[in-house]
């Protein structure tokens, strides 16, 4: 009898998530196999045009750029986040330091992007400083290129990398490091052969939290990127609102969904405890 009660509890959420998540995703997949309508929308006729366009050179190039930008910012984020998380986990003031890292991220996401526009923009702080001190004459273009995108992506996702790394390192038994040193390992060896393998779940989660949202970014390349940093998210929005090619927008979105889901599954398989850490570090 109690079985029915469980279904009763879960029925509303099941209905909602079906109507507004599962159905829309299915509609996207369906639309990606339709012909393009003249003014947006689709014509209900089976067509593989969208997928043909998906594999044209320009779009593949964008996909590659997107991958590289996401990968580079994830890598740089990790390089900074790992030792920073280590320092926090080993500090006596860990709660304060952790708060220090989290506070800037209570600010609105767009304001965080804007802070970089105010610094790097043509009439921004850095240009004003350089012009005044006579180092440059005329504006230097710091913004609207791939470097700006990487910096802002790092700025956006660094805390999401630090938090899971921190909770993994905090659980690590540091006497293992001492044991490694006592057995003759150099400091570098101890870190790479003992510490890193033991916090694999934390690293996996940090990569997941950084790479996937960076890969699907829309706002950052739109606001601080330029011609060299078109990302897939930008293209989806353009096809949807400007070019009005809905089947193509749907096909890109569907491809993005499949790639993301597959990479998450692969990561989870790689490391089962990553699932646990995701639970811990989300709120």
């Amino acid at each position: 009898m109690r079985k029915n009660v469980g279904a009763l509890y879960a029925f509303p959420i099941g209905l909602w998530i079906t109507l507004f998540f599962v159905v829309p995703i299915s509609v996207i997949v369906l639309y990606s196999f339709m012909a393009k309508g003249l003014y947006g929308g689709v014509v209900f006729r089976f067509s593989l045009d969208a997928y043909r366009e998906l594999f044209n050179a320009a779009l593949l190039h964008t996909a590659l750029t997107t991958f590289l930008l996401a990968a580079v910012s994830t890598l740089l984020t990790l390089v900074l986040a790992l030792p920073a998380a280590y320092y926090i986990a080993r500090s006596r003031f860990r709660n304060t330091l952790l708060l220090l890292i989290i506070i800037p991220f209570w600010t609105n996401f767009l304001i965080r992007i804007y802070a970089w526009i105010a610094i790097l923009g043509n009439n921004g702080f850095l240009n004003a400083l350089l012009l005044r001190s006579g180092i440059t004459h005329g504006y230097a273009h710091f913004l609207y290129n791939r470097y700006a995108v990487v910096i802002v992506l790092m700025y956006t996702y660094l805390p999401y990398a630090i938090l899971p790394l921190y909770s993994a390192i905090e659980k690590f038994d540091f006497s293992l490091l001492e044991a490694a040193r006592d057995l003759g390992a150099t400091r570098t060896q101890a870190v790479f052969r003992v510490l890193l393998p033991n916090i694999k779940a934390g690293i996996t989660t940090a990569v997941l939290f950084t790479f996937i949202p960076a890969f699907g970014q829309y706002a950052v390349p739109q606001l601080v990127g330029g011609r060299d940093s078109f990302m897939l998210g930008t293209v989806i929005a353009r096809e949807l609102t400007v070019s009005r090619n809905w089947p193509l927008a749907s096909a890109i979105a569907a491809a993005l969904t499949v790639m993301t889901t597959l990479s998450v599954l692969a990561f989870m398989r790689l490391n089962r405890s990553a699932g646990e850490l995701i639970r811990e570090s989300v709120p």
Partner: protein
Amino acid sequence: MNRSKGGVPLFAFVVTAVFFYAPLLVLVCFSFNASRTMTWSGFSLRWYGELLFHSADLWHALGRSVIIALSSSVTATALGTLGAIGIYWYNFRFKRYISIASFLPLILPEIIMGVSLLILFAAVGLPLSLFTIFIAHVTFNLPFVVLIVSSRLDEFDYSVVEAAYDLGAREWDALVKVVLPISLPGIVAAFLIAVTLSLEDFVITFFVAGPGSTTLPLQIYSMIRFGVSPVINALSVMLLAASIALAFLGKGVYRYIFQR
């Protein structure tokens, strides 16, 4: 043990902290600048005045954001809490489907949800409005609520609920008198997170908002697209102060209720 404390980790932490705070510090300083440019030319509260008295659009947008945040968070918290209880403690058909489908939105890039909802609304002919934003916000908040409430349920023993049944409680009594009180800290935390996420969201809202339903992030977006403006500097500082204050307030309220 102490030898591993300095060096690279300390350096990385300092770099991270500077990287985090330097941009915000620049915003704070220049929000008090007398001139329009990013060159310092004296202290002034002019831009705050402009923000408070000549930016009606922004305040309307804030009003809409608050309405959406409260309504969508209440709905998401209610649906998500019941769902979490059902998924966590019971077995039923489609349980696996529901638990996976309500976790997936968490890992997909935001733009997917925005695009797919926009296409759905267009397909069924629902005009874009505050209502479509409400639907989108409930949807992206649900996974967070389920996650947070079920991690609260994790800490409890089902035998408490069984004891209630054994003592003759009906289903409704067990829910209202045992299960909900047990999960209350999780429910409140989930609600607070949902409000925050809703106030914050730009990408998904961008796709499902129609004319006349501009929320605060959308309004900010349309302002910052055109580069530096001293009014946005002032706005940033006020938002920064407000969100820090709200975060501490939220934490304080939470502590006051649950950890006395």
